[in-house]
């Protein structure tokens, strides 16, 4: 029986043992040739016995978090009590002032009309699997909220909101299920009442992390904890990052024919540029292109070599307000210490969101921040670059990172740039604030344990791949002549890289990906050789 046809109710989450809905690849979202044969794609890897023995929380046969199995009934009971304690804190002013008001509004006013469902790319790409409905996990939390948090007669509450049994099976499955939503908030846009299922998922993750200490290791141990301890979620300390950037500078200087030199810790600089440090390791041409851009524009800029200051990543945004606050406070302190006029966030959606809007209510409002897209458009408008759009004469489409576009309203600067520098630019449909998530949002792009990558490729990223293919529909998809997906966000780039690899899109159709700044530098006429080298990508 296909996963779609399995009749699952909200209350089933606490029933039975093992996998609730065994999922499988489906082709409800149809891809054009040569990607239309589902049977040619790898399916979901089955979990090994070791994983099955070690973890709990089986809901769909996929493991993203890896919830450790309790070793005894007492431990299980303690975990249930810990969850209940966290549930109370989630609805308290002191512990959750950060999101209490929107959370309560979303808890108490959903009409259960399901209007939001078809806006979810995961629900659509999965073939409408019940547990991926944006309202499913929200409804589980809602029933728990009314049962345990809100005062009143149990009978009336049951009549009004339904019932649910709280046990470890529910909790462990809910942990995993809270990592089957990319928090893109497309569903929230379509809710006529203003209920936000993305927020509810976010709050669930917080409860698990902040009270129970449960979070994916890529986001927590290897993410925020490592960033705060070592300086970067990549594991690079100050010395290593400086070494790497020096190497990038040398490489860039050779490429462009003039000296490119990154400045470190310049006090009173106009701009403190904070990249997602993943760029330095995975896509060095991106920070390299930024350095060239700043040189050409004559900007007084700097990077920080202080721990945390050279990495704009803040995975706390996805699962833990305290970790979020710790990192954003560090960023602000470093900017104040250097006395810079503003922080410019590199091409990274979630970094931009934290420093641009979310974090400003934590750090006090006296540190100014600007996103990379606005910053780059301003440079282009200044006329300091000698741009020749013909140097980008290949098909280009634009991915809209949810955090920059839907959440921050930065929609047009990147388009105005592309219209100037890329003659064969075309939009994806839908685009702008109604875009689809890349499928790697909310930290998924860096999560690849067990068989989670398979899930990202088949479900969360499939709609984006279809959009990419559709954008290039007027090109020959069986020819490997280059086509460029411009994704001005590190996490989105990571996910798009994985999608293109998974489907073999570079080899089959010549689809490449990269940032926006690389396209800008590629269009600079004063640089002899093309900056973008498709043979090397």
């Amino acid at each position, binding site marked *: 029986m296909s996963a779609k046809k399995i009749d699952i109710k909200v209350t089933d989450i606490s029933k039975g043992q093992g996998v609730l809905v065994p999922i499988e690849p489906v082709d409800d979202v149809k891809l054009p040739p040569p990607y239309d044969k589902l049977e040619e794609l790898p399916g979901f890897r089955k979990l090994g016995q070791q994983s099955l023995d070690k973890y709990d929380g089986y809901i769909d046969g996929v493991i993203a978090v890896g919830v450790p199995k309790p070793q005894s009934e007492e431990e299980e009971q303690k975990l249930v009590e810990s969850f209940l304690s966290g549930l109370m804190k989630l609805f308290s002013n002191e512990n959750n002032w950060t999101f209490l008001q929107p959370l309560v509004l979303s808890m108490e006013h959903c009409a259960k009309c399901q209007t939001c469902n078809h806006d979810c790319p995961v629900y659509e790409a999965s073939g409408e699997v019940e547990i991926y409905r944006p309202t499913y996990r929200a409804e589980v939390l809602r029933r728990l909220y009314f049962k345990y948090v809100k005062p009143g007669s149990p009978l009336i509450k049951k009549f009004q909101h339904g019932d649910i049994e709280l046990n470890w099976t529910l909790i462990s499955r809910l942990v995993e299920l809270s990592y089957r939503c990319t928090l893109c908030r497309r569903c929230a846009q379509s809710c006529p009442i*203003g209920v936000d299922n993305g927020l509810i998922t976010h709050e669930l993750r917080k409860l698990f992390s902040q009270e129970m200490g449960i979070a994916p290791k890529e986001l927590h141990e290897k993410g925020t904890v490592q960033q705060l301890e070592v300086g970067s979620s990549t594991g690079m300390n100050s010395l290593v990052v400086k070494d790497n950037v020096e190497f990038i500078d040398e490489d860039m200087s050779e490429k462009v024919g003039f000296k490119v030199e990154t400045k470190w810790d310049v006090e009173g600089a106009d701009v403190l540029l904070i990249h997602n440090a993943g760029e330095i390791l995975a896509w060095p041409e991106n920070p390299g292109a930024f350095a060239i851009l700043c040189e050409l524009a004559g900007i007084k800029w700097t990077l920080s070599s202080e721990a945390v200051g050279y990495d704009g990543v803040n995975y706390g945004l996805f699962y833990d307000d305290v970790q979020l606050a710790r990192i954003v406070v560090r960023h602000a302190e470093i900017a104040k210490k250097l006395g810079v006029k503003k922080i410019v966030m590199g091409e990274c959606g979630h970094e931009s969101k934290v420093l641009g809007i979310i974090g400003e209510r*934590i750090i006090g409002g006296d540190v*100014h921040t600007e996103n990379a897209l606005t910053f780059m458009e301003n440079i282009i408008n200044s006329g300091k670059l000698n741009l020749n759009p013909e140097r980008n004469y290949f098909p280009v489409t634009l991915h809209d990172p949810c955090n920059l576009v839907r959440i921050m*309203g*930065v929609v047009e600067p990147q388009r105005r740039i592309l219209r100037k520098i890329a003659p064969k630019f075309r939009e994806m449909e839908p685009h702008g604030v109604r875009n689809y998530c890349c499928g790697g949002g909310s930290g998924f792009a860096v999560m690849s344990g067990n068989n989670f990558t398979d899930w990202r490729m088949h479900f969360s990223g499939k709609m984006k791949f279809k959009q990419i293919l559709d954008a290039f529909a007027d090109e020959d998809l069986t020819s490997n002549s280059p086509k460029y997906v411009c994704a001005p966000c590190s996490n989105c780039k990571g996910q798009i890289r994985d999608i293109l690899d998974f489907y073999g899109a570079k080899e089959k159709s010549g689809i490449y990906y990269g940032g926006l700044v690389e396209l800008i530098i590629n269009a600079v006429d004063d640089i002899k050789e093309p900056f973008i080298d498709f043979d090397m990508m």
Partner: protein
Amino acid sequence: MIIIYILTILSIITFLVAVISKIIRISSAPVHLRWELYPVPHEGGGKAKYGGSRLEEPDWWEKKIHKDSLGELKVMVPEIVFLKGVWEHNKQLWLGSYPFHFALYLFIANIALFTLVTFLKLIGYDIFLSNNIFGQIIYYAIFIFAWTGSILGLIGTIRLLFSRTVDPNLSKYSSASHYFNILFIGSLYLTVFLWLISGRNFVAEMANFYYGLVTFSTAIEIPIVAYWHIILSLLFIAYLPFTHMSHFFTKYFTYHQVRWEDEPNIPSSKLNKKLSEQLNFPVSWAAPHIGADGTKSWLAIATEIPQKEK
């Protein structure tokens, strides 16, 4: 009749107390972190059209913020009057939901019109007795609203009940109260419909009831179906704010306080002061990496170097 008058007063008081206390509860919640969702319709400079924000401007903090309040109205009016969001994203549901809601609007309009008629009568101007055009317009407006409302409402009730029962997308998520609420509201439409087809003068009889209510007159005569309609309406008014249907006013908060709330945190502003207070709230989250003890504040926890986890 006196019992009904008392019930009316209790019902209105319950409604007002419940609504006001809910508004106070929501409004007094702590200021949350920004969580807006674009498009934000008050963004000026033509940005609202495509979902842009002031963050598209270089050095945006040095520029004046243009807030276009008319932009919010342009979104809210079609949303409330036509349920535009449901139409765009869920047409099947709209077919039931729209007549159901629009009928309520017509009934609310009638409450306003009856209140006006009663007020005029109290000050000595019985517009239904005089032969003026204004009285006739009001009379026929109420009459048409009642007929249209009751018929549309019944269509919406049947359609919604059918959808909630037959469509598994809805039935799986519907509690007993969903069916009860639809039937409850449907009973208001049905009783007006029965009153209208009974051949009685609905407008005159209801107007008499309103007048009787404010004068506490016991000499008012209304048919049995009218008693049913009035009692059910009063119970519904008292019940409404305690349900998820309170979205009729909390929607203001989900939109204005969350989805469209984009106020920047400017040093020394009211917002800034509130946030500073909240940063001193004590934290008691129990996970070891938080390092909370129930007395340490958010500020202390966010600024201290976390101890290495064991």
